[in-house]
């Protein structure tokens, strides 16, 4: 029976190849555009996510709150409330903390043998590598010992190194002058490739104690970076830090806190929701073209039924049950959409790869969108084939046979 259905469908569709082909084209374009659009959306999403994750993994940042002078806020980060003891307390008292990196950073003019640049000088500790996901390219980061003894050593970000010593030069052993203090370069970090405002590639890293002694001259931190042990514990770590610091700073009302805590997950969630919206927008536009393709199928099937009215009458006269006539026309519509779906998937896949290679946009073909597209094309076939098939099955055989 299924063989019969298959044979009849092939016979009928190949009977009018041009029309079948054009009808399929509608579905092909619909499916291909859905897949390409979703691939572009997913690609953008994963690019943004990995950009954010390169800042550090499971990162929580504690920043000083806004300083209030007589009720007038000076803006976030303006107050000087965080000290190294806070960082030590977080490390020793909060559970599920992998690493803590207190930072005291400020921009300075940096000079080296005839060149100079303006860079963010970050005073920190060795755990910074863990917290901020930084790797060394040349040399090594400063040791705990150098941190304790306020050693005048510096690690350059690759951009700063390029500015001061030339592209890809090895500056280890040379010295740079920050605020008229000589620091010996001991290493260069690996490029993170990110771009923008707070790019770690253009930083200079020095021991925290050195930064406080020789550069800022005070004990305050600009922020404390905390790496949670894993994704799941981030919320609890954040809450513990909040409680701990409120207690240490003797603040009873949490709304009056003199610090702010930022969670990397929040940033990712925001970015993800933006890209998801774009994906939905793009794929719904593509979905409309799929709908139009479906209407094309229905149009063709209706023409088909009208054209083959006599044949349908004959089939009924020789005793074919309604069910089979219905099934036959439905099968034609489903085969058309399935063919269109299959070609559309291949085409969409190809288009995604082309976009990936020739336009500077990352695409990611998600298997779920392929299955989704295939399912939708089958549903489109059934939905838009249903009415014409029913119309064929319900034809009166006498009138159908007389139809001219």
């Amino acid at each position, binding site marked *: *029976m299924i*063989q*019969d*259905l298959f044979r*009849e469908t092939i*016979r009928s569709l190949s*009977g009018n190849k041009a029309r079948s082909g054009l009808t399929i084209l509608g579905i092909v374009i619909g499916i291909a555009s859905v897949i390409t659009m979703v691939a572009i959306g997913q690609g953008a999403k994963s690019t943004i996510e990995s950009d954010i994750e390169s800042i550090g993994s499971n990162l929580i940042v504690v920043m000083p709150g806004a300083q209030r002078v007589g009720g007038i806020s000076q803006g976030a980060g303006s107050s000087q409330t965080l000290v190294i003891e806070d960082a030590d307390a977080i490390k020793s008292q909060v559970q599920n903390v992998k690493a803590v990196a207190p930072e005291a950073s400020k921009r300075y003019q940096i000079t080296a043998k005839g060149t100079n640049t303006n860079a963010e000088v970050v005073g920190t500790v060795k755990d910074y590598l863990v917290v901020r996901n930084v790797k060394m390219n040349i040399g090594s980061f400063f040791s705990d010992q150098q941190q304790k003894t306020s050693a005048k050593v510096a690690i350059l970000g690759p951009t700063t190194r390029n500015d001061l010593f030339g592209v890809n030069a090895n500056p280890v052993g040379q010295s740079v002058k920050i605020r008229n203090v000589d620091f010996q370069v001991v290493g260069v970090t690996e490029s993170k490739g990110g771009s923008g405002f707070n790019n770690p590639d253009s930083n200079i890293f020095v021991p925290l104690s050195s930064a406080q002694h020789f550069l800022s001259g005070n004990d305050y931190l600009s922020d404390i970076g905390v790496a949670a042990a894993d994704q799941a514990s981030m919320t609890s770590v954040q809450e513990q830090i909040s409680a701990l610091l409120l207690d240490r700073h003797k603040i009873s009302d949490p709304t009056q806190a003199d610090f702010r805590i930022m969670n990397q997950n929040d940033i990712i969630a925001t970015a993800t929701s933006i890209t998801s919206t774009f994906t939905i927008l793009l794929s719904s536009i593509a979905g409309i073209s799929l709908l139009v393709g479906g209407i094309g199928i229905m149009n063709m099937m209706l023409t088909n039924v009208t054209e083959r009215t*006599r*044949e349908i*009458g*004959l*089939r*009924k*006269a*020789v*005793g*074919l*049950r*309604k*069910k*089979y006539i219905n099934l036959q026309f439905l099968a034609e519509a489903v085969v058309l959409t399935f063919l269109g779906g299959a070609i559309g998937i291949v085409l969409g896949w190809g288009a995604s790869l082309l976009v990936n290679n020739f336009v500077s946009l990352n695409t990611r073909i998600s298997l779920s969108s392929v299955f989704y597209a295939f399912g939708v094309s089958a549903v489109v076939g059934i939905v838009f084939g249903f009415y014409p098939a029913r119309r064929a099955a319900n034809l009166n*055989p*006498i009138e159908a*046979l007389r139809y001219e």
Partner: protein
Amino acid sequence: MIVCNNLCKTYINGDVETQAVCGISFRIEKGEFVAIVGPSGSGKSTLMHILGALDTPTGGQYFLEGKEVSRLTDNELSDLRRGKIGFVFQSFNLLPRTTVLQNVMLPLVFSDMPMKKRKAKARETLKYVGLEESKFFNLSNQLSGGQMQRVAVARALINDPSIILADEPTGNLDTRTSRVVMKTFQELNSKGHTIIIITHEMEIAQFARRVISVRDGLIEKDEKN
């Protein structure tokens, strides 16, 4: 085999009622060759539709092999047509762009019979109605009128029906070919097939052994040749 009691068919089109046939009664026994003749509008087509189980009467009873057809559902009517009735149409109604063999196999589609057996049966039936084997794989539109009607007759015979119902089978054929086709029907009748032919031409009706004349929805004459 066929028993009609007081058959009536009334078409209702909006407020207008048209009585196509009314009060027709006759019996047709197995092995008969009957021609139903009458001018257009006499109700012979309506009668043929009822006899062919394409339509049900609005009054009276129609028994085919002891089964009352007027009480059957749509699916039961389909099954009855497939099993018991072979249709031959005026305009042949062969599927275009389809081979002779495939046309003859059409009534077997969606049946349990395997493809091999269907083909064998179609060949056998085509030989039975006298079509040369060289034409079996020709497309139906490459045949002459007489050959087409032969294929249509073979299609009607493939399910071994109780009756063959031919609606103006010579309407699209010239006189010479008409005679050949009618001779075929006579041969089939002599082999034991029950045949009913609807026509408006008396010369064609002369090939049958019994002629039922219909006029204004009633039987006018019923005589043996």
